[in-house]
């Protein structure tokens, strides 16, 4: 595991730690659950669509995407990658998927379904079924389909409408997405009921849905506070705290309380003009997936006055929407999930930014969080988190005169990210940011 030693410059939020702990708890709970005969499911990040259904059915969910990152950071991924390679999967596939395929191969072909002893965090237990998602990229449903080679777990692929910015405003378009979502979820509920042999508790689903929406509203408000100068919360705290909102990890009432605590702490920092780093010289936006294994890199940048004030569209809570008048929880879930993309479309259309939901948010972030630069992190084996980055860089410069620095890495091959090389680029990029500050001022921007 790559660990950066030395001084920690970033002033971490105390309220973040109990939220971060929920990830570990979730893995351990899933292992305990299966030992106690409770069902466990492998799920893809699904943007609030399938998770509340499973949560309401008391099903433990583990996320192989996250587990891929853990396996990489703890140094066990390599043996799974080699196993996937030996089984014939092309090496340029998503690193997380290859890790899971190699893990499943070892678990099912060598260990007769037992968790591999070297697996960190208690490992991923054999699932009752797989919940994949068509959102974001093709890999996230093809990968679970490919697991059929190793295990007889049925797969449900959650549909994920992906509208174009212009098309979204065709009359009836949004309604057809909602219609798809509600019907699809109703069938998904029936599938889950069939798998676990019990009926959905609709009151519980109603409550779970409301908690999910409220957690994400508070989490959104926390992030809005980060528009303050100096920014009171660093991206590292965002990434540490997000799983409870994004994956519904842990007890939801507890999560809501913890996010409310975080709101108070961040608000206190805003009121007392306390930043997340000692001296905020530059405000930056980060895209997309961070280098999980080298997060200490951000402390080095913090020493130079780089504060990361906004980040990772794919992990951010949806822009809040009033769903209080929608009585059907499945419709509420659908509309909330759609909001993840759709929340940005009206502005994107007004500004004629046609690059879809993946690209427009960065324009909004840079403008509203008043960023001096963007740090882009294209990943060799995660094309979905990388494809839009050249376009994002082009658009940030074209529209806002905000420069970008691109530093290549990977999600599992730790050798591809070179923090020293990246730090060597910091000083020249500071000159670039200074230059564009002047350009922005001349162009009438207010930062």
């Amino acid at each position: 595991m790559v660990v950066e030693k030395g001084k920690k410059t970033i002033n971490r939020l105390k309220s973040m730690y109990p939220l971060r702990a929920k990830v570990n708890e979730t893995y351990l709970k899933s292992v305990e659950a299966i030992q106690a005969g409770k069902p466990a499911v492998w799920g893809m990040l699904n943007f609030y669509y399938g998770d509340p259904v499973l949560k309401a059915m008391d099903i433990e969910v583990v996320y192989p995407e996250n587990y891929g990152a853990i396996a990489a950071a703890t140094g066990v991924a390599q043996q799974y990658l080699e196993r996937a390679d030996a089984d014939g999967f092309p090496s340029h596939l998503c690193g997380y998927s290859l890790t899971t395929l190699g893990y499943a191969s070892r678990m099912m072909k060598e260990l007769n379904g037992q968790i591999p002893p070297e697996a960190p965090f208690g490992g991923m237990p054999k699932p009752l079924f797989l919940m994949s998602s068509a959102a974001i990229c093709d890999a996230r449903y093809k990968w679970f389909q490919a697991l059929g080679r190793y295990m007889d777990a049925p797969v449900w692929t959650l549909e994920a409408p992906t509208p174009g910015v212009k098309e979204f405003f065709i009359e009836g378009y949004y309604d057809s997405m909602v219609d798809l979502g509600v019907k699809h979820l109703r069938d998904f509920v029936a599938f889950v009921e069939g798998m676990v042999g019990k009926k959905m508790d609709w009151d519980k689903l109603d409550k779970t849905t409301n908690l999910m929406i409220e957690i994400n509203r508070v989490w959104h408000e926390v992030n809005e506070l980060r528009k303050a100068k100096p920014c009171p919360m660093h991206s590292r705290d965002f990434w540490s705290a997000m799983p409870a909102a994004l994956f519904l990890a842990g007890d939801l009432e507890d999560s809501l309380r913890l996010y409310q605590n975080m709101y108070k702490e961040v608000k206190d920092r805003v009121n007392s003009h306390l930043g997340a780093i000692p001296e905020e010289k530059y405000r930056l936006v980060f895209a997309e997936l961070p280098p999980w294994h080298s997060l200490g890199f951000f402390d080095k940048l913090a020493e130079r006055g780089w504060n990361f004030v906004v980040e990772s569209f794919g992990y951010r809570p949806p822009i809040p929407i009033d769903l209080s008048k929608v009585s059907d929880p499945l419709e509420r879930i659908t509309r909330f999930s759609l909001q993840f993309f759709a929340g940005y479309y009206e502005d994107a259309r007004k500004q004629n930014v046609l690059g879809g939901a993946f690209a427009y948010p960065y324009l909004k972030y840079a403008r509203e969080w008043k960023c001096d630069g963007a740090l882009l992190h294209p990943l060799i084996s995660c094309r979905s988190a990388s494809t839009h980055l050249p376009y994002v860089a082009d658009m940030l410069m074209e529209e806002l005169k905000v420069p970008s620095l691109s530093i290549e890495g990977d999600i599992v091959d730790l050798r591809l990210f070179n923090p020293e090389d990246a730090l060597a680029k910091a000083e020249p990029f500071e000159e670039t940011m200074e230059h564009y500050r002047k350009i922005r001022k001349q162009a009438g921007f207010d930062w």
Partner: protein
Amino acid sequence: MSDKNKGLSKAQEIYLNRSQRARELKAAGKKIIGYPCVYVPLEMLTALDLVPYRTCGAIKEPVTEADRALPSSFCPIMRNCLDCALKGKNDFLDGMATIHSCDPQEKTAHVWESYTNYPYFHFIDMPSTVRPEALEYFKSQLNDFRKTLEAFTGKKLSTDKLEAAIKSHNQQRTLVRELYELTKPSPPRISGTEIVQVVKALMSLPVVEGNDLLTEVISEAKNRTDGPEKESARLLIWGSILDDTDIMQVFEAKANVVMDESCGGIRAYRAEVKFTADPLEGLADYYLKEITCARTFRQATLGETRKDYARDLQSRFGYLKGIIKEWKINGAIMLLVRYCDPFAFEIPSLKDYFGGLGVPSTYIEYDYTTGALAPLRTRVEAFLETIS
């Protein structure tokens, strides 16, 4: 010597100068609509008197312009297609019809729209499953496509015209299947290389002209005396797209390619659109269910709560069984364009399936450049040695 204006020679001419006919039609007042993927329902364009033109890449063209918009570790085909567009090679187009058939198609569509300025541009969203609600959603997407096409052309898309267009395109599908009947004999009456030229020509012409060309090609191939030599290897090629003769010739140097199961071959022509009371329903059904691209999530039984690997393989690859038997295939090549996730995930399972049928197979990857041809040749020769 065959007539240059007919049949196979004509197909070759069109293949070598794909845009010529589209430019002529444009000069004559027709509107030309580009499409990058076979999932775009061409019947809707034809019915409105628009000329569909598939925007392909060119393996001899080094990617330069697309670098500013797409990263290098991205589908080489879409990078190449966009590159050609940004270099003005498709400057005769009046618009683009794009579709979410896969992630690179979706991402490239938005970038394409941002960096170009066609009078018409539409993006069709496409579900990933074949569930009833997904089909219904896809039909609504086609209805939205209809609305924007009508607004662009100023014409109504009538049921009569759409049915007539479906009939013409179904005829083309029938003719392509007839063309592939000519690869059943040994030696085949037509080579894989010639079929690449014919199919790419079809994607450059209005459907009626394409059907005339096919009729000529079939007649000529049936009666020819200068067909391909007989080779011991009769290959099936499976992959996303094989649309270049240089690549096909690598395989055909020492083998007969009798089936190209890619969207440069038979894939878009194997089935037909059914006539339904609402033609959009038949179109939605055909395009979502019948085209056997790896992008679609298929299961033995929808929403199954028990899984059986053998049944799963059958639901995903079962269509290949009949092909292998009827075309007497003795070797299969899984041809992967680098970074193509939907097809890449299929490789081990498809190898299992071929293995179950007793058909030797190999997986070969390339990056859609001429630099890939030499290593491709080595891999193909090695495979042919193993099956000989």
